[in-house]
C-alpha cells in the first residue's frame, strides 16, 4: 500500500471527486471519466478522494462492475486514492458490505474499514513528513444512507460509535504527535446540519442552488470535531448544485463540486472537482474548484451580498 507524504516543497494536494453517479458506462459516464482525466492532468494531485455516490446503484446492471469502472481512472493514474460511500451506492441490488469488498481489493486504493463500528469504510490516513512521521491526518466516515428510525424520515447520520471511533483515533494520533493535535481533514458524503447553519450565519463562498439535504437529526459529530480541535475542514457531496464553503467555530465546512454527469445538475453549472492543498505544519488549507472546461473557480463570491446585518 502506498504511503502518503508531503512533497519536498511542503505541500500535499488532494482532488475531491464527488457524486459521480456512474451507471453502465454510457456516454455520460464517459464524460465523467474525461472530467476526471482532465482534473488529474491539470492538478497532478497526491491523493484522490471520492466522497460518495460513486455509482447510481439502482440504475446499474452490475453495481460491483460499475464501481470497478468508476475508480479505474484513479487506479490507472497511479495516484493513491480513497473513497467513502453515499446513499446511492447501495440502494437496491448490492449491499455496502459487498461494495466495500470491491473497494478494498482495488489497485492503489487506500480505503479502509474499522470492524465493530457502524457503517462501512470508516478509517483514517496520515500524511507523513520527510522522515515519514505523521504530520497531518485524514478521516473518512460512512454517513450512511437512509434513517432506519420510524419517527425520523430522510437521510441517515453519523452514529455515536463512529464519533467515538473518531475521537479515539484523534486522541491516539495526538499522543503520537507529542500532545499536539494533527492538522486534519474529514471526508464523508452527507452534509452535517451545520452546513445549513454556516450558510445562514457566516460569510460563505461559492454557490447554494438547493437546500442542504442533511439528516433530520444532529448526532453531534461537529461538536466532537470542535472539541478535539484537529479537523480544520470537512468535505462532502450529496447536494449536486451546492459547492460553497464557510467557516463555523474554526472548521471550514466545504461542499465538493459535483463531478458526475449521469444525474441531476443545473444548466450553466459546470461539473468539476474540489482541490485541496495542505502545507506541512500549517493548520489551514487552500482550496479551489477545477471545472470541466479546464478553468479554475476560486470562489470569491457567495452569500456576503445579503449579509449586511
Amino acid at each position, binding site marked *: 500500500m502506498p504511503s502518503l507524504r508531503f512533497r519536498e516543497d511542503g505541500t500535499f494536494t488532494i482532488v475531491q471527486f464527488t457524486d459521480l453517479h456512474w451507471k453502465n458506462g454510457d456516454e455520460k459516464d464517459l464524460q465523467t471519466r474525461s472530467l476526471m482525466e482532465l482534473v488529474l492532468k491539470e492538478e497532478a494531485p497526491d491523493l484522490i478522494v471520492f466522497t460518495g455516490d460513486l455509482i447510481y446503484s439502482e440504475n446499474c446492471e452490475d453495481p460491483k462492475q460499475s464501481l470497478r469502472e468508476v475508480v479505474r481512472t484513479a487506479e490507472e493514474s497511479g495516484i493513491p486514492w480513497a473513497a467513502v460511500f453515499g446513499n446511492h451506492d447501495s440502494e437496491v441490488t448490492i449491499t455496502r458490505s459487498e461494495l466495500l469488498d470491491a473497494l478494498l481489493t482495488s489497485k492503489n486504493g487506500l480505503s479502509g474499514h474499522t470492524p465493530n463500528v457502524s457503517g462501512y469504510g470508516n478509517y483514517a490516513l496520515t500524511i507523513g513528513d520527510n522522515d515519514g512521521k505523521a504530520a497531518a491526518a485524514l478521516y473518512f466516515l460512512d454517513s450512511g444512507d437512509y434513517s432506519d428510525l420510524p419517527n425520523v424520515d430522510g437521510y441517515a447520520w453519523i452514529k455515536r460509535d463512529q*464519533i*467515538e471511533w473518531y475521537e479515539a483515533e484523534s486522541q491516539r494520533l495526538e499522543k503520537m504527535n507529542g500532545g499536539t493535535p494533527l492538522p486534519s481533514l474529514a471526508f464523508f458524503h452527507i452534509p452535517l446540519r451545520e452546513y445549513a447553519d454556516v450558510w445562514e450565519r457566516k460569510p460563505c463562498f461559492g454557490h447554494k442552488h438547493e437546500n442542504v439535504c442533511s439528516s433530520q437529526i444532529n*448526532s453531534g459529530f461537529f*461538536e466532537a470535531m*470542535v472539541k478535539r480541535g484537529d479537523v480544520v475542514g470537512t468535505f462532502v457531496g450529496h447536494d449536486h448544485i451546492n459547492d460553497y464553503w464557510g467557516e463555523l467555530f474554526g472548521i471550514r465546512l466545504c461542499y465538493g463540486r459535483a463531478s458526475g454527469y449521469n444525474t441531476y445538475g443545473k444548466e450553466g453549472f459546470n461539473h468539476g472537482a474540489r482541490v485541496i492543498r495542505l502545507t506541512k505544519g500549517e493548520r489551514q488549507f487552500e482550496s479551489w474548484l477545477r471545472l470541466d472546461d479546464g478553468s479554475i473557480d476560486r470562489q470569491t463570491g457567495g452569500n456576503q451580498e445579503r449579509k449586511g446585518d
Partner: protein
Amino acid sequence: MSRKLSFRDDGTFVIVQFSDVEFIADGDHDPDTPDINAETRRTMETVIAVERPDLIVFAGDVTASARGNDPLASFRQAVAPAEERGIPWAAVFGNHDSEGAVARSRMHEEQLAHQHNVAEADPPDLSGAGNFSITLVDRSGSPAAELYFLDSGDYSALPSIGGYDWIRRDRIRWYTELSRARAEANGGVSLPSLAFFHIPFPEYREVWEQQICEGHCYEGVSAPRINSGMFAAMAERGDIMGAFVGHDHANDYSGTLHGIRLCYGRSTRYVSYVDGVRQDRFPTGARVIRLKAGERSFETWIRQNDGSVAELPVHHPER
C-alpha cells in the same frame, strides 16, 4: 436514596416540575428578595396543594448563586416546600446554581443530604454534577418507567464557542448505556421514560419553527451554540417520551419532534423583567406531568399561582 417510587393504586404517577425558582438569601443585594422568596414559596405551596404530586422536580436554577451569600442556605430554602411535606423530590442544576462560591458537586451533595430527596450520587468519572436516574415501579414492584436527570452545565468551556454549555458526550453515553441496561432487564422492551435537564437543546428551536406547539414563546431559545447529539441519542434509543427544561422564563411551550415531546416548564419565580421592572407576561406556576403505568404516553398541563390550569395558545409553524 434508593427508596422505591411507585405508581399509585389507580395506576398514575404525578410529577410537578418547578423551574428556575432562583432562591437567594433574604435581603441579599435586593430589598425585594424576601417578598419574592415568599411569593415563590406560595406558588409552590399552591401547586403542591392542588396537584398532590408523587414527585417534585426542580429543573435547575434552584438558586441564583451569584447573588447570594450562602448558596447552600438558598438551596435548602428553595426545596423546603417539598422537604417539609415529605414529598419525594429531586433537582438538576442550572447555569445560575454554580456562579457563587459553591461548586455544582457540593450542591449535589447538599440535595442528597435531604431526607426526602430521591436523587442519586453521580456515577464515578462522569462529567458534571447531578446525573442520575430514578426507576418508578408498578404495584407489583416491577420497573414501569424511568426518569433521567442530566446536568446541562452552565457556560461553554470553549472560548471559541461561548454561550451556554451542553450535555457532554460522556453523559449521553451514560444515558444510552443505562437505557439499554434497563431495557435488557425489562425483557428487551425499553421503559417509558422522561428526561429532565435545565438548558434546552437546539431542537427546542426546531420544534417551535416546524411543529404545532402549545404554549408561549416570548423569548429566543437560549440553547447552546453547538449540538452534542443528546436529542439524536434519545430518538435512537426510543424510550424517552418527553424532555423537560427550564432556563427561558418567558417560554412554556411544548411540541413533538420525531416522536419526543419537548416541553418547557412554567417559570415558578418570575417570567420577565424589562429594564429592571417585573413584567410577567403570564402568571408564574409549574408544569405538571401525569404518567400511567404501562402506557407509553403522558399528560401534561400547567398549574398557575392562583391554582388554575393555564389555557395555552396553539402555535402553527409559519411554513
